[in-house]
């Protein structure tokens, strides 16, 4: 025994240290629960993320589902691995794998399946198309340097062809459109009429290969393509130095794919949430009405959706998720085509007094 006293001593120190770690390192996370009053189905694959604006809490968001709450980006590496595998089955990997190999790529989801364009090497532009995510059609456009050395705004399909809006040579005000012909593997470019606004991006075109819950499945024959519009504004710093910055413009803007120009549908109105799906562009206004724009005729219709106060809105696959923060937790409603289909609430269990003082943000995924 005397001969191993050192081992025992150090062992004791380590054990005590581990105990301190176990006590001090554990976080007392508040448990949240999602209570659904009607129609559980619309909440089945949803996550309500609770984010607190507080220095006193560990830097975590809490993901609340029907099964309870878990802190996000937490837990063991092993569990993260299993979660990833559960979300990405073998079936959906071919297209994403092809997409990951492109240096600079955008992706849209259409009624004809997923599509992406991206850069390969220095002068080749690649177009990927996949109907089911398994089989991928690859078309390469050589000598596309002109487009590759430009700032991309986004792409869309019109008249059976893929079109890309971009800033020629990264010049902010020099917007062009490129039209790709897959059969001849060639493309033509053309300057567009930006109608004094700048295109910030095409709605629905995502930069990441990672799927987004907010991406709608869009039709491929829309004449008007929803865009985010921006304007250059000159700002002054405290030192008196002036600089220009691109600022998002409020309102709804579309790009006319036939006439190649930007069209303002509705300017300087605050919108709570928008959706581009099929042939429609939808938005919830701050008074709770839903505006629906037909993307072939620009015909507008409105209908009353939310009665009373309007909180934050998230469109997920044409369902409108409405979150209205309350003193304790939040009230949640789901609307489908203007009709309320589900009502639920989310709230912290236990020490609600502590959490109610802090600003809490809710996001639906």
């Amino acid at each position, binding site marked *: 025994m005397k001969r191993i006293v*050192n081992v025992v001593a150090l062992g004791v120190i380590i054990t005590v240290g581990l105990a301190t770690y176990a006590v001090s390192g554990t976080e007392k996370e508040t448990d949240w629960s999602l209570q659904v009053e009607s129609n559980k189905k619309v909440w089945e694959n949803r996550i309500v993320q609770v984010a607190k604006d507080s220095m*006193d*809490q560990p830097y975590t968001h809490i993901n609340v589902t029907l099964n309870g709450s878990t802190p996000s980006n937490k837990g063991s590496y092993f569990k993260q691995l299993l979660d990833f595998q559960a979300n990405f089955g073998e079936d959906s990997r071919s297209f994403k794998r092809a997409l990951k190999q492109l240096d600079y790529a955008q992706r849209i989801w259409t009624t004809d399946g997923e599509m992406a364009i991206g850069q390969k090497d220095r002068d080749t532009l690649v177009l990927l198309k996949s109907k089911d995510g398994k089989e991928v059609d690859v078309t390469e456009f050589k000598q596309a340097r002109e487009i590759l050395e430009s700032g991309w705004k986004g792409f869309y399909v019109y008249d059976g062809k893929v079109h890309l809006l971009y800033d020629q040579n990264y010049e902010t005000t020099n917007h062009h459109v490129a039209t790709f012909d897959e059969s001849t593997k060639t493309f033509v470019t053309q300057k567009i009429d930006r109608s004094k606004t700048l295109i910030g991006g095409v709605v629905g075109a995502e930069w990441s290969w990672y799927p987004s819950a907010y991406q709608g499945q869009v039709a491929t024959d829309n004449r008007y393509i929803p865009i985010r519009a921006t304007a250059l504004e000159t700002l002054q710093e405290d030192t008196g130095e002036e600089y220009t910055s691109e600022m998002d413009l409020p309102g709804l803007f579309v790009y006319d794919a036939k006439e190649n120009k930007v069209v303002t549908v509705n300017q300087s109105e605050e919108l709570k949430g928008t959706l581009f799906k099929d042939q429609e562009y939808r938005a919830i206004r701050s008074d709770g009405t839903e505006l629906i724009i037909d993307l072939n005729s620009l015909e507008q219709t409105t209908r009353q959706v939310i009665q009373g106060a309007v909180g934050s809105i998230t469109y997920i696959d044409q369902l409108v998720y409405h979150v209205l923060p309350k003193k304790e937790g939040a009230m949640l409603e789901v609307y489908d085509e203007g009709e309320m289909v589900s009502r639920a609430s989310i709230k912290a269990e236990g020490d609600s007094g502590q959490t109610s003082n802090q600003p809490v943000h809710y996001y639906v995924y």
Partner: protein
Amino acid sequence: MNVLKLISWELDRVKKSYLILVGILLLLQFGWLGAFLWRQNATYEEMRLEGMTGYTVSFINYIGSTIFTLSVGVAIVAMIFFSVWIWYRDFQGRGMFMMRLLTIPTGRMELFVAKFVTVMMLILGLFAIQWMALFLQYQLFSAWLNAKMIPLQGSFERAIQFDYLAMMYPESGFNFLVHQVLIAFVVLALFTFVLVERGLWQRTLWSPFLAICVVSGLIALPTFLIIYFDRYLFMDEQIGLFGLALIGMVFGLTLLSRRFLSKKMSV
């Protein structure tokens, strides 16, 4: 039992320097904590006299400070140095203690295991002391600020998620194990370097250089493989590849160490 005795003996030899290291680290941290709080106090008083409000202090300010980071750095460097020194010290002197060690009947690999466990225990010991010290430091920190009525911002839980400290405070037992395995891998690589170098030192002047080439080559090859395949693979596949590469490297390093220790090394 033999291994246990060997470990105890190794620990006994290093006890004094280890205690000195721990002493220096604690002195550095607690001394700096005192100075830090003193300075905060002075700044707060100054601000208060000038009528400015909204001054808050966070534990992250202390953890992120140069001197605290330096103390952690000192510990890391000391452990890296020790992983190498634990072998080289036996080659010191005219009699060369290694001669006796290599001839003990328990076998040379037991010597290897004993030294390895010793290093890992000492590293874990430093972790343990830091866990306790940091917890104590936070108690002192919050008590002092409360006494001086300086607004304290942020909790201990939030502070320990700071940057590299998250390595010390993993979120699950599994993650803790993964971190320890990565540390063990570094120690193994250092051991292999020493054994290759000592296996060749009597034959060529270039033995340190050769040893570095062998060990870094063994690590670089799978690393390049991982980097090359990175863009073709998804997260789970990447982790799988990384795991395989790690197992391969551990296997390779252990075999290499074993070969040099049992066959090539002479004194």
